[in-house]
């Protein structure tokens, strides 16, 4: 019954998607990726392909390593004390863990939005939007950047709510607004890939809906990888879905297939247990 409900969402979504996955260009590919903290293995031999201009949803129970996977993709994992990593991740056919790759430059191309909104409290709303450009010396305080600010805030569907108080502290915003500000901040840096870690987990349904429509509207310009706890959300917005369980990639493929006819029983069990 609920399965059918979900299939319905998936199929309507799929009509708008058009291209089947096989036509798509792979932008990110992990190869035997394993990651651990201290000696605890968190990710185990992950082989995953992510296509360009596409929304991939990563689903799986809490603690299965979804956030860790995202953090490996933009080399944030290595910032944590005691973390180790093996394997390769190819971004546009170059291994990002190659010695020659500067993680700082890589992160400018692969943005990450965290689960908990983390706007910079020392900056105004406007400065938060520009923070990525400012922190990477792409602009300075004197640059005329009003259009950049408006653009990013429009994209993040936040413009109308904050256009009259751009100089207010970012902490004057509600949680949902803060999260959209963080998305605007990531977008203003014009990355190629946008990683989002449960961006809606602390938001109300209206803010969630806004962010979903935002992501759908960004799909044609960015490659988006979104971790989500919400199966309906995954079904509503993603073209492809990857299912992780205890640090292993159980399966991934077109969202329609994963949700209606999963190949693995573990996927099926998980999905049927999570249609609530």
């Amino acid at each position: 019954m609920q399965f059918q409900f979900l299939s319905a969402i998936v199929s309507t979504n799929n009509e708008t998607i058009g291209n089947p996955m096989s036509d798509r260009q792979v932008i990110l590919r992990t190869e035997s990726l394993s990651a651990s903290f201290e000696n605890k293995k968190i990710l185990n031999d992950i082989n995953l392909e992510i296509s360009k201009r596409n929304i991939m949803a990563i689903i799986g129970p809490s603690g299965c390593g979804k956030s860790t996977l995202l953090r490996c993709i933009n080399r944030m994992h290595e910032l944590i004390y005691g973390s180790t990593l093996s394997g390769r991740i190819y971004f546009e056919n170059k291994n990002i863990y190659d010695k020659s790759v500067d993680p700082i430059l890589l992160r400018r191309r692969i943005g990450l939005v965290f689960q908990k909104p983390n706007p910079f409290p020392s900056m105004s709303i406007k400065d938060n939007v520009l923070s990525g450009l400012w922190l990477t010396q792409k602009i300075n305080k004197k640059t005329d950047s009003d259009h950049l600010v408006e653009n990013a805030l429009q994209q993040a569907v936040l413009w109308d709510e904050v256009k009259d108080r751009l100089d207010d502290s970012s902490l004057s915003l509600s949680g949902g607004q803060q999260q959209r500000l963080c998305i605007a901040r990531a977008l203003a840096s014009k990355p190629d890939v946008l990683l989002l870690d449960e961006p809606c987990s602390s938001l109300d349904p209206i803010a969630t809906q806004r962010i979903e429509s935002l992501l759908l509207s960004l799909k044609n310009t960015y490659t988006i990888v979104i971790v989500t706890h919400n199966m309906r959300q995954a079904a509503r917005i993603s073209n492809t879905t990857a299912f992780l369980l205890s640090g292993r990639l159980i399966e991934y493929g077109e969202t329609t297939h994963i949700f209606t006819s999963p190949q693995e029983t573990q996927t099926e069990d998980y999905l049927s247990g999570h249609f609530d």
Partner: protein
Amino acid sequence: MRNRNNKLRREAIARKERYIERAIFGSSLLSILIAIGIFVVLLWGSLPFFSEVSLTEFFGGTKWTPLFHDKHFGIWPLVTGTLLTSAVAITMALPFSLLASIYLSELAPRKHRQLFKPIIEILAGIPTIVYGYFALLIVTPWLQQWIPDLAGFSSLSAGICMGIMIMPMLITLSEDALRAVPSELREGSYALGANKFTTVTKIVLPSAISGIGSAILLSISRALGETMIVAIAAGQKPNLTFDPRESVETMTAYIVQVSMGDTPTGTVEYRTIFAVGLTLFGLTLIMNLCSYYLKQKFQNKYASL
């Protein structure tokens, strides 16, 4: 039966908890009462003084000579002496402490931190009289090689040593302020492609600024009240000057001078120490209140994160 035993036991525990709560409340009340008591004693002692010396003379005069035949009671030379030594101390301590706290909080590998923290704590345990003699016997002669007209007692020499003395406190408090910046902000900065230097200077430091401000004010307050170093090395000459090479007298040093000297109690010169003490009390109280205000502001900022 069993139920009743349980009930009794629970009641006994509840009673015990009430006693503990009361004891804690009592001791915090005691510390507040002591602070109020000190204030009242100072005020009480100052009242007879202010019946003889007008407030305008005390706060408006620029000459401080209560122990001389020609008495003047203008507090300003003591105030500038106190502020000058403290200013030298904080100027001396701030750059080093800030860099050290950034190093300890943001850059140091764990091993280095484990090495440096105890050393800093040892520095904090050195009696201030040691710093005083260090200033007088080592720092002053050394400085005199470079600054020929440096007096034998000077606010520069005393201030430098006082700076070393407050460094552990300033480092520790600033490090706490930096560590209190949520790691989510650092991660947010790195995720935007910022490097470590930018993250520290543009995100972490500005986010910790009110906490660091609070640390600075507390350290200044500590320097204002410091007695031994200035009594030994800054001199005992009330001197309305902003030249750190000259000899000055701080409020604390003056109080020491009078209470250890042969000034008869009950005289107006003896009562000056209450008025001076009260002024010092007011000055440090203002510092502490500002520090508290900044700290509250700092904590409120991150309450939502």
